[in-house]
């Protein structure tokens, strides 16, 4: 399996070239956000208030990092389960969000919003948080500091390993991966 190197921010072309199941190394800037930050961002959009970062073309990483030890840039920082953000995702996509990094499957509404907005959902390996932290070059809190680990951080990634989970055509590895494996070993996927 070859690996694709993608420089962030994502572009129309880079997104179009990605297929569910591709191994990708991401480099560049992402913003962190999980339950509480999503709630605030959605409210800010509704109120027409300023957003913590420019959503246009941005990639969000669903993570609440652990504190850094000594001079490390960040502590353990693996993905959190994405479905909890599903309620907010179509709104964020409609406002320009292009990429998401998390783990686990998404709702049908999110999958259609990904297709409609030509975006992409990457999965990082859940629980590989120390390994993933080694691919985060720098970290700083940019907004919602009172949320602690849930504050919005700006991370600069360096060859951060992910897999394309849902591509811009709506192909979904959480649907196809299991059945493809079962077929490959001669079992009938139920």
């Amino acid at each position, binding site marked *: *399996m070859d690996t694709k190197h993608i420089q962030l921010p994502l572009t129309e072309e880079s997104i179009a070239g990605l297929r569910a*199941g591709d*191994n990708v190394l991401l480099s560049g800037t992402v913003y962190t956000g999980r339950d*509480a930050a999503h709630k605030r961002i959605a409210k800010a959009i509704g109120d027409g208030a300023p957003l913590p970062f420019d959503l246009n073309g941005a990639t969000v990483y669903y*993570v*609440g*990092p*652990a*504190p850094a*030890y*000594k001079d*490390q840039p960040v*502590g*353990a*920082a*693996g993905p*959190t*389960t994405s*479905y909890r953000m599903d309620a907010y995702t179509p709104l964020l996509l409609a406002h320009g969000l292009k990429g998401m990094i998390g*783990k*686990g*499957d998404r709702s049908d509404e999110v999958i259609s919003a990904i297709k409609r907005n030509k975006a992409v959902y990457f*999965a990082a*390996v*859940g*629980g*590989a*948080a*120390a*390994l993933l*932290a*080694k691919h985060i070059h720098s970290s700083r809190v940019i907004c919602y500091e009172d*949320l*602690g*680990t*849930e504050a919005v951080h700006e991370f600069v990634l360096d060859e951060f*390993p992910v*897999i394309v989970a849902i591509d811009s055509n709506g192909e979904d*590895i*959480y649907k196809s*991966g*299991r*059945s*493809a*494996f*079962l077929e*490959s*070993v001669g*079992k009938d*996927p139920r």
Partner: protein
Amino acid sequence: MRQVSTEAIRRAVIGCIERAEYFIDPEIAGAMRCAERSERSPIAKRVLSQLIENYEIAACEHIAICQDTGMCIVFAEIGQEVHITDGYFEDAVNDGVREAYKGLRKSIVSDPLFDRKNTQDNTPAVIHARIVPGDKLRLTVLCKGFGSENMSRIKMLTPSAGEQGVIDFAVETALLAGANPCPPIIMGICIGGDFEQAALYAKKMIAQSLRYEPEDERYRALQEEITLRINALGIGPAGFGGDTTLIKLNIAYLPTHIAGMPCAISVCCHASRHAECIL
């Protein structure tokens, strides 16, 4: 009476948390290596090798195994010959948690529904204490992530559901959980007891050794059957498809009421962080 000070308890809690968060249980590391060797899916092999490397980085570089450093669940077995001195037991446990989490992620909110305000020190811990014979105090600390906790379930099965009812509930639980609890998972099941006892023992079973076998051979067979069925689902590591969905299932069984057969399932990720200390 044997005296155990709250300071000794506090230090024991800190020690358990630090061990659990940075050093994976060697049994789990071993099971993951075996799984990596036997996996037939290339993508699953890749995920497993990342997870094994992750354990090494965590231990060598002092980075927590997972960023969700969890909610602390403390099982205490307090010998009835033990006299705890210099303060309250639960305060000592929470003081230990507070100290240990200074360098870890704080994931606890004080009000669950309205405020959801972070307590900023990862307290309070969930404490389950039992009085047992003897003059020792045994602490088992779990640092439980909620990606997997959210996939746990309980069902008040009726006696007529039988063995099949348990099998179906367990397989359905694994299937519904999919990639969310970071497979490969460890599962604890308790059949019997009442509503809360079933849940409690199911949780206890995820901190059990991977070599645990129920005494009754019928439950051993059930354990094996459910394990095969779940691994045949093909969910695989990280849910990308593969052979390894379940690392280990441990089943407990308890006396119950003539009208019931509660069945609780506790789901834990491969990053099962737990440690034990006897005072």
